[in-house]
């Protein structure tokens, strides 16, 4: 039954203003639904049954965290559960489950939501369900408002693991957006993926964790996008600082018009191990192609020898833009944090009496961007590297519900460039 962490008793007869939480286990989805109902009616009763003496009322009025919860009659307002979305996470591996739960915990203050983490087990054997429900109401220190959230961890086994949408559907909150977060390597095109993707409004992935060199799944992602699914990719979001700095350089009045005359693009990416990951570099190429109207030229040729660069071209009218992506063997440290991370981007433009070189290089904790005009540096910018953890990016993806057209166009160009 519902275990309720009792509010702290004190001189003041107000339920603990900081937090109340409930934890319960269920062995079927319908049991899960019932238990959630029980939790919220208990929560509502507990909040309503808060009779206050005059003294308490005065104390509550003086407490900035509580005064907002007092209604016109100066009694504590009934507890309210506000959700802005349902987050569904599919995490087949136990370590992914833990990572997802940690991110959800960090996010719940910012995104009051119901989170359903589904952990599909072995397809063989009998179908099983084991659900853990955790619900909590906390007064946000930030706004003084009470925010209630729920986390449901559902482990499935047997054939049920192939029908995750059936597990998830009864648990969705009515008429709220459903975001599907697939933290690992999503099996685009499989029935398991298709079925659950159909009940969700948006898909969140990280192309940084795609299998192999990342490009095969990138093509799968482009197919998903072409089917009309709204997608956010953490790998793309991580490129934002690079994009901002490059855009910032070309805000300079001398440089803006030179974007029309770009001749070459060179990208260095980190290769700490055997795999030459091309996802991020491909995104950057795709983005520049989409923004600057570059058409397809020669698709990217991967090197035959380890340590060699990949080459390709774009076209803009009669002009050819040469692209070179070079692997840099490096050990992972504070700045070089993942295979495939960009280390340096260099864009060159040339026309009569005017040559521009714009360059961004990764430093220990920031990116440094400079641009030269006929050999003289004319502008310089720096930006702090964003944190490595995925939580802030998940938060950002949840906050921007709309289509990101620039992402979609860049993805399409990137896939065309890498697969021809």
């Amino acid at each position, binding site marked *: 039954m519902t275990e309720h962490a009792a509010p702290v008793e004190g001189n003041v007869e107000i339920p603990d203003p900081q937090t109340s939480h409930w934890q319960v286990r269920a062995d079927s989805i319908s049991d899960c639904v019932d238990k959630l109902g029980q939790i919220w009616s208990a929560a509502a009763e507990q909040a309503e049954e808060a009779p206050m003496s005059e003294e308490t009322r*005065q104390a509550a*009025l*003086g407490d900035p965290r509580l*005064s*907002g919860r007092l*209604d*016109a009659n100066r009694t504590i*307002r009934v507890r*309210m559960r*506000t959700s*802005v979305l349902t987050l569904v996470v599919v995490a087949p591996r136990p370590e992914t489950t833990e990572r997802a739960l940690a991110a959800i915990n960090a996010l719940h*203050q*910012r*995104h*009051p939501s119901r989170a359903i983490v589904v952990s599909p087990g072995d397809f063989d054997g009998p179908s099983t369900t084991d659900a853990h429900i955790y619900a909590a109401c906390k007064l*946000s220190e*930030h*706004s*003084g*408002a*009470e*925010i209630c959230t729920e986390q449901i961890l559902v482990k499935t086994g047997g054939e049920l693991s192939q029908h995750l949408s059936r597990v998830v559907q009864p648990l969705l909150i009515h008429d709220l957006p459903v975001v599907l977060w697939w933290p690992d390597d999503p099996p685009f095109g499989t029935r398991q993926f298709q079925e659950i993707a159909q009940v969700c409004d948006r898909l969140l992935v990280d192309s940084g964790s795609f299998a192999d060199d990342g490009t095969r799944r990138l093509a799968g992602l482009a197919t998903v996008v072409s089917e009309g699914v709204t997608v956010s990719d953490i790998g793309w979001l991580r490129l*934002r600082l690079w*994009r*901002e700095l*490059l*855009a*910032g350089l*070309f*805000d*300079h*009045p001398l440089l*803006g*018009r030179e*974007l029309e005359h770009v001749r070459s693009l060179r990208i260095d990416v980190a290769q700490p191990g055997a795999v030459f990951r091309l996802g991020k570099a491909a995104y950057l190429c795709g983005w*520049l192609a989409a*923004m*600057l109207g570059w058409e397809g030229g020669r698709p990217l040729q991967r090197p035959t020898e380890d340590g060699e660069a990949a080459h390709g071209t774009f076209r803009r009218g009669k002009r050819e833009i040469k692209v070179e992506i070079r692997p840099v063997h490096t050990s992972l440290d504070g700045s070089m944090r993942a295979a495939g991370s960009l280390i340096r981007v260099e864009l060159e433009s040339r026309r009569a009496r005017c040559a521009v070189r714009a360059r961004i290089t990764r430093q220990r904790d920031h990116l440094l961007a400079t641009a030269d005009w006929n050999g003289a540096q004319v*502008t*310089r*910018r*720096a*930006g702090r590297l964003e944190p490595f953890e995925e939580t802030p990016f998940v938060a950002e993806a949840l*906050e921007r519900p709309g289509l*990101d*057209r*620039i*992402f979609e166009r860049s993805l399409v160009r990137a896939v065309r460039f890498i697969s021809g």
Partner: protein
Amino acid sequence: MATQTSRRARTQPGTTREGAPQEAVHVYHRESQAEQNPLRAGLMLERVPDPCQIVVFGATGDLTARKILPAIYNLRRAGLLPPETTVVGFSRRPLSDDDFRNLAREALNSHSRVPVEDALWEDFAEGIFYHAGQFGERKDFRDLAERMEEIDAARGTRGNRLFYLATPPSAYEDIVGNLGRAGLDRQGQREGWARIVVEKPFGHDLASAGKLNDALMDVFDESQVYRIDHYLGKETVRNLLVFRFGNGIFEPLWNRRYVDHVQITVAEDGGVDGRGAFYEEAGVGRDILQNHLLQVLTLVAMEPPIAFEADALRDEKVRVLRAIDPNWTDARARAQIVRGQYTGGWVGDQQVPGYREEKEVDPESKVETFVALKLEVQNWRWADVPFYLRTGKRLARRATEIAIQFKSPPLMLFGESATPPEPNVLALRIQPDEGIMLRFAAKVPELGLDVRSVNMDFTYGHSFTRDAPEAYETLLLDAMLGDASLFTRADEVEAAWGIVTPLIETWQEWDAKSDPDSEICFYEAGSWGPENADQLIERDGRRWRRL
């Protein structure tokens, strides 16, 4: 003089859509390099302000330390300003650039909403300069102009300048005149733009507001002037527009057919906080009613603008003010206005002195610290719908709220209910605990048919848990981007003074005559104002909402 007249003529409502100022704004947009940069699409700020020099007059003052410098620093920190952005302090005190940088650092340490990071500070401090001078001294402005040319070359600010008047209003005319004489107002003939931000109060009555506007427009064009009322930069005030015009279900009800009346409350629990001398001059009429309260009223009552764009919005706001009768006859003033002054009492658990016992306040003062009034917006949408406004110091709690009370159903079916349902109310809370509340009737779950009012309550904090930016950050960024939507236009200021000035003059006449029937009413600190304020609304068979 001819120039001046033509400039003023452009600010009349209705003419601006075709008029020059708006066109000029569009020209700046087109010229902005940022807009030509295709790589900017989809980034957080699709348009980044051009690099500019922000010249702050009154650089050693309180406003600069508490609001302006922290706002610029936080914008810079958030990556919303280009790194070339430069601050030039101008004040009388003889300080070096480094002295002023130290002052700025102290100001940020005490007032920034986020802690100052050393690395960013160093970069920021390189762009801070100081120029000592007298506001009335022409030569000091010529020197300033030369200094700014040098800074343009060194910092790459490209001749863009934003002048910020953070001085007492008495210095405005000197500064503006000298900016003109030094040629610092010019734009168009050479590279870059010039804009001027003016802090409220914009005059202390209709005549002085007109005089200030004349002085500004002698030198600048209306499209270069940004009159800042930080209240309009507040997230919730801006939200009011989204609530009204971003939802389909409320606007059809937003008129005389469905609305019984509107109440707007701006209540403060604080007193005059050491600003006794200022308050003796201003009173709540000038301090709150003329600007905040009338601004909120215009946002509630305005027609939908044709576009979410500065002049379209401001045209509609001015129309509301023009639909309010500025003719305060003695009888109307007596019937529709209550002014009050607080006496000592308890606010929460604090015992506080009365207004007349505050520092720098005349012990016989007749200045109002509370005002409640009934206004009518005489247009097709609002005819016969009273707007009840109240504002005051040392009231029971700090609360700003707009309440729209709807008409009752034409026939009451549930007569047997112990309590008849109360009319529907839609309340928009601006502070604290920003949110929206809708009150409606529901059946009490039991065998009988008892009806009770329940509140459906939405709190922003429940759904959006991010920090809203400071009003000054929003407004400074808008000024740098050339977006004047949240700034007050000259005709708007004058229309608001046109309503409030005759009122204040009537009070002054009454006080001079010491007419016992029209004396100021007293209220105890910590109450909701004088009893007469309750009677004002109760005479019409309504009551103030309990907040």
